[in-house]
């Protein structure tokens, strides 16, 4: 995919906020001293009067956003995933989730591809944490086009939403005519031997892997799951019926994320063998994003390896 345009989904987030801000006066953005990194700075430049820096105080920021939402504003509260979902988990749970307030959490720097900052900032637990909150929509877009659509859908959705964006640039593979819907998975390519169900930046890797597998005579279906909760059950069940084998791929711990959501569904409704590709219950470390992803098995190469062994061809 060397010739493909690459954009980090955090940039998509900032751009989408600025575009939506022009249409909707009640959209406000909160940040915790990271506007440059989360890209809410793009919105701030366009609408400085609707951007509030809360300083390095994420717990407070989440609750301030909750309070604002009760007056009819639609706040997007932003920080790194580690702090938005991790540090402020209980604030999200009690002050946004429990009262079911209309707050959108835009969490950037999710996963291991944060890179050089190392394990303290590489959040691989956010899907797990956010999935457990009743009524919370959890989304992890795969490219620029989907990320922008996801932000728009989050604004239109009434209720709490958690969105995870990445730091590193990733390939743009959706077309401008892409139609996004919360809770709907996307079959990117059909296949019958195995279904690769991926989220976030792993979707591009899955697409790449399917091409390589095809050369070895393995027909792999690729499914993009942006909405981890509520999960598109039908697309997963159909993949299980058609392919009989499922591989999940996510830049997240294998505990509590997309892989577990798929396993939970299948074990109850259609027991199907599943291989989970993700971070295997370990912390990351410093290094360039691309090298880290490879080292942690979050790559097309590793998906190919797992698929070949799984399918037995």
């Amino acid at each position, binding site marked *: 995919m060397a010739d493909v345009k690459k954009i980090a989904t955090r940039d998509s987030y900032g751009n989408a906020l600025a575009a939506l801000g022009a249409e909707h006066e009640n959209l*406000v953005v909160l940040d915790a001293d990271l506007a440059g990194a989360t890209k809410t700075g793009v919105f701030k430049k366009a609408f400085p*009067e*609707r951007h*509030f820096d*809360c*300083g390095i*105080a994420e*717990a*407070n920021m*989440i*609750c*301030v*956003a*909750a*309070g*604002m*939402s*009760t*007056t*009819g*504003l639609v*706040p997007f509260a932003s920080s790194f995933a580690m702090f938005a979902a991790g540090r402020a988990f*209980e*604030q999200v749970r*009690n*002050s946004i989730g*429990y*009262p*079911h307030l209309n707050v959108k959490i835009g969490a950037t720097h999710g996963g291991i591809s944060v890179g050089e900052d190392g394990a303290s900032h590489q959040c691989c637990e956010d899907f797990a944490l956010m999935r457990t909150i009743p009524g919370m929509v959890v989304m992890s877009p795969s490219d620029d086009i989907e990320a922008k659509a996801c932000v728009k859908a989050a604004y239109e959705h009434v209720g709490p939403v958690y969105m995870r964006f990445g730091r590193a640039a990733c390939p743009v593979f959706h077309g401008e005519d892409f139609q996004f819907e919360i809770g709907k998975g996307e079959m990117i390519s059909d296949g019958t031997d195995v279904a690769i169900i991926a989220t976030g930046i792993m979707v591009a890797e899955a697409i790449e892997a399917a091409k390589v597998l095809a050369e070895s005579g393995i027909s792999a279906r690729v499914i993009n799951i942006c909405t981890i909760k509520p999960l598109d059950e039908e697309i997963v069940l159909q993949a299980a019926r058609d392919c009989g084998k499922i591989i999940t791929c996510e830049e997240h711990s294998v505990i509590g994320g997309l892989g577990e959501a798929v396993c939970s569904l299948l074990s109850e409704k259609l027991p199907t063998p599943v291989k989970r590709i993700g971070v295997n219950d370990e912390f990351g470390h410093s290094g360039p994003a691309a090298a880290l992803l490879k080292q942690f098995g979050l790559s097309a190469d590793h998906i190919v390896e797992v698929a070949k062994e799984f399918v037995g061809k």
Partner: protein
Amino acid sequence: MTAAEKKQLAITACKVRMGIVTATHGAKAGHPGGSLSAADLFTYLYFKELNVDPANPKAPDRDRFVLSKGHTAPGLYSALALRGFFPVEDLPTLRHIDSYLQGHPNMNTVPGVDMSTGSLGQGISVAAGMAKAAKLQNKDFRVYTLLGDGEIQEGQVWEACMLAAHYKLDNFCAIVDNNGLQIDGNVADVMSPYPIVDKLEAFGFKVCAIDGHDFDQIEAAMNTARETKGQPTAIVMKTVKGKDVSFMENNAGWHGKAPNDAEHEQAIGELKAILAELEGK
């Protein structure tokens, strides 16, 4: 305020206290101590200060009150019920299964509750968010929040204070119920929050230190809060935990314990005597 008005507030506060005792007795659980210490404040807010309408509890331009010390829901519920937001007769269903009167305030089930609270330290941040939102939308409603003196041990409280002062939220008023006791004992012994007034001043608040059982002082502080421009106001009110129920007064043991039948009878008897005296019977 006139003597008659003050007397009427005292009568209402006594009824709020009866509601607290009745609710926690009915629940066989709950937090009477800190509800009773704040009963005069609840009364003043809902019967004098707040621009609220029981017939239209979600009116967009109403004043807001966030009970940051959410465990004292019995006090808030009792005041709301007496103010007409829901039937006083429902108070004994507090904490019962399927009752709308949840153990901690739930904005989606209890008419008049502006925010779901219970986890300490969060309500003040939410209230600050409401105040900031009012400023942004050029609305002139005011936002009040009540904190416990133990609650201010939560670091998030000070994050919220920093924000309220930074954004000059003069439509925001944080009240601290300084009854001096928390679950494990004296706040000064458990983890001293003192000096509270100095800390709040240092954080940029206009601070009023008052007796939280004196309606004249409460009124003066609320007036100061409304008149103060360019900075938020804090009211630090010295109170008696368990106020007006003799065996609960200044006793940390009554932080989170319900009166049994005999205790309930005694407490109601004491409050009835106060009421009779106020009403001149």
